């Protein structure tokens, strides 16, 4: 495929999103419009926006690549994506979050926490944490899609990153959440079509579900070695079996499954979707659409990852590699793009590329929106107590979003490690920092400001220390080697310890330091519709 074709299709794609951004701009009159789309969204738009935000190119390319290394055991993550990410998230968090958000007239997660506990400092600190770390996560999203375009169109990585960032930035800054959600609907449809055709195509090539899985199970380490697949050593019981209990591959799967699977509950960019619902019925009816969408995305992506090994062995395609400082290493992120490039017709290669681009852009636009809101509204306007007119408030948030976009661009041009780990890093950090205060705030009337500070900072500090000092993937890069040599410990996601710790701290400190009168008033107000 040549650069001219890329430029034409990309221009059409970009023009469509910029036009939607313009429509969103016309519709956005108030801060409520910009932050929560006027609290007026129906079930389908909420579900597609939630799903398109949740499922990024990291999930589709990064995790299907990881599935090609560790096998079908990663399907447990697909199960958690639906069971926790949709069922638990909407039923136990969505309805209450919307009611509390409406009662407190809050439009972001930090604003809900700050208003509920009568503390602008809580709002400012949480906004700062979200704003800073979301830049890293957005960078991971762009990294995945730029890699894909580099493999397929052989155009420079830097060029891809700059183009994608500009398109998403313009449509978001102009269109606010209206623009974001409308583009998500189109992007979700593209993603559904792309993933369905890809999955059906791969299973059809291998003779159906049973034969395909049996062919994957029958692959010997020798066959996998012949194409240079890392699955030869990382899936010791075969591609369709769980790895041995507490082995290194088992720990890797465990850490990914729980880091992302549970971490989804405390994602600020997803929590905002609950606040956009026009009523509770819209949220309830979003559940089936969301469930089906996630099934089509992650279940299919994680299913086809291991099957790519079979296709590569059958067709004599070598497992993709990349050059790093340590030499040439396998590149799981390029597995699905390579299979699509080599075995699918050219029209589908283009469709798939734009489906992945849609996945990346939808997640990135939500992240930019949430990070911009965190820095503009939570940190600058509320945290620093600036009295702004509604018009100026919107302008400040748009400027903050622009700064976030530029910071992400700079970080993505100097990429870090494998994309999926940045995704797990962000999910784990958000969960350990916010999930305990957020959950107890929704369900326990006695949660106090001091408890929230303890849970939030305790979870955050623990997670950061874990990543710097212990976690096998990050500690060696930061301090040379992990402080704990035992891999069953250093491969654990911080969520296993940080989350219970954060719950414990929030609970114990709330018992010890009670709510004051102002907090009690806000607590009563937040529960008035529950």
């Amino acid at each position, binding site marked *: 495929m040549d650069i001219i074709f890329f430029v034409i299709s990309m221009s059409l794609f970009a023009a469509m999103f910029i036009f939607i951004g313009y429509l969103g701009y016309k519709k956005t009159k108030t801060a409520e419009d910009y932050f929560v789309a006027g609290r007026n969204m129906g079930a389908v738009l909420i579900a597609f926006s939630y799903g398109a935000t949740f499922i990024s190119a990291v999930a589709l390319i990064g995790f299907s690549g990881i599935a090609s290394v560790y096998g079908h055991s990663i399907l447990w993550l697909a*199960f958690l994506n639906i069971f926790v990410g949709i069922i638990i998230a909407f039923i136990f968090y969505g309805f209450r979050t919307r009611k509390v958000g409406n009662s407190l007239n809050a439009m972001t997660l930090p604003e809900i926490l700050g208003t509920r506990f009568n503390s602008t400092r809580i709002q400012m600190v949480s906004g700062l944490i979200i704003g800073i770390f979301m830049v890293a996560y957005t960078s991971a999203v762009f990294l995945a899609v730029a890699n894909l375009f580099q493999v397929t169109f052989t155009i420079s990585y830097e060029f891809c990153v700059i183009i994608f960032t500009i398109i998403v930035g313009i449509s978001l800054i102009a269109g606010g959440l209206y623009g974001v959600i409308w583009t998500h609907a189109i992007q979700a449809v593209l993603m559904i079509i792309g993933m369905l055709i890809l999955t059906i195509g791969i299973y059809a090539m291998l003779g159906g579900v049973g034969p395909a899985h049996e062919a994957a199970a029958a692959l010997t380490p020798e066959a996998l070695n012949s194409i240079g697949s890392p699955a030869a050593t990382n899936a010791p019981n*075969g591609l369709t079996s769980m790895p041995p209990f507490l082995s290194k591959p088992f720990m890797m799967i465990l850490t990914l499954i729980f880091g992302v699977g549970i971490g989804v509950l405390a994602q600020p960019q997803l929590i905002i979707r609950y606040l956009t619902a026009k009523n509770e019925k819209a949220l309830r009816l979003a559940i089936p659409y969301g469930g089906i969408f996630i099934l089509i995305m992650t279940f299919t992506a994680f299913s086809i990852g291991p099957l790519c090994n079979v296709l590569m062995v059958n067709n004599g395609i070598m497992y993709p590699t990349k050059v790093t400082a340590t030499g040439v290493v396998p590149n799981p992120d390029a597995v699905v793009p390579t299979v699509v490039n080599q075995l699918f017709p050219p029209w589908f290669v283009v469709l798939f590329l734009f489906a992945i681009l849609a996945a990346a852009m939808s997640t990135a636009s939500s992240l930019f929106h949430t990070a911009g809101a965190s820095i503009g509204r939570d940190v600058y306007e509320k945290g620093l107590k600036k009295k702004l007119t509604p018009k100026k408030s919107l302008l400040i948030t748009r400027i903050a979003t622009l700064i976030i976009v530029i910071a992400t661009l700079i970080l993505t041009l100097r990429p870090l490690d494998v994309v999926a780990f940045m995704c797990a890093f962000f999910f784990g950090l958000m969960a350990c920092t916010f999930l305990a205060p957020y959950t107890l705030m929704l369900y326990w009337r006695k949660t106090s400001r001091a408890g929230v500070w303890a849970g939030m900072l305790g979870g955050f500090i623990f997670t950061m220390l874990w990543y710097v000092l212990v976690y096998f993937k990050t500690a060696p890069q930061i301090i040379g080697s992990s402080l704990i040599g035992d891999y069953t410990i250093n491969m654990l996601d911080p969520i296993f310890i940080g989350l219970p710790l954060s719950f414990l701290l929030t609970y114990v400190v709330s018992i010890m330091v009670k709510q004051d009168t102002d907090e009690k008033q806000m607590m009563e107000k937040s529960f008035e519709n529950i």
Partner: protein
Amino acid sequence: MSLILGMDTWVFLAWIGTILATIFCVIYGIYYQFFKKSYTEKSLKKEDKNKKNKEDD
């Protein structure tokens, strides 16, 4: 080792669990769309009432 649809028991559990979770989502939606009318009407009325009260305030 016995395989179900080419997968071992634990992987098959994840596979079938994902499909069952989605079916639950669909049934949940159908239930609230078609069979829980009294609930949704009640919920909408309550919200309307709250909105009205807020406007009166």
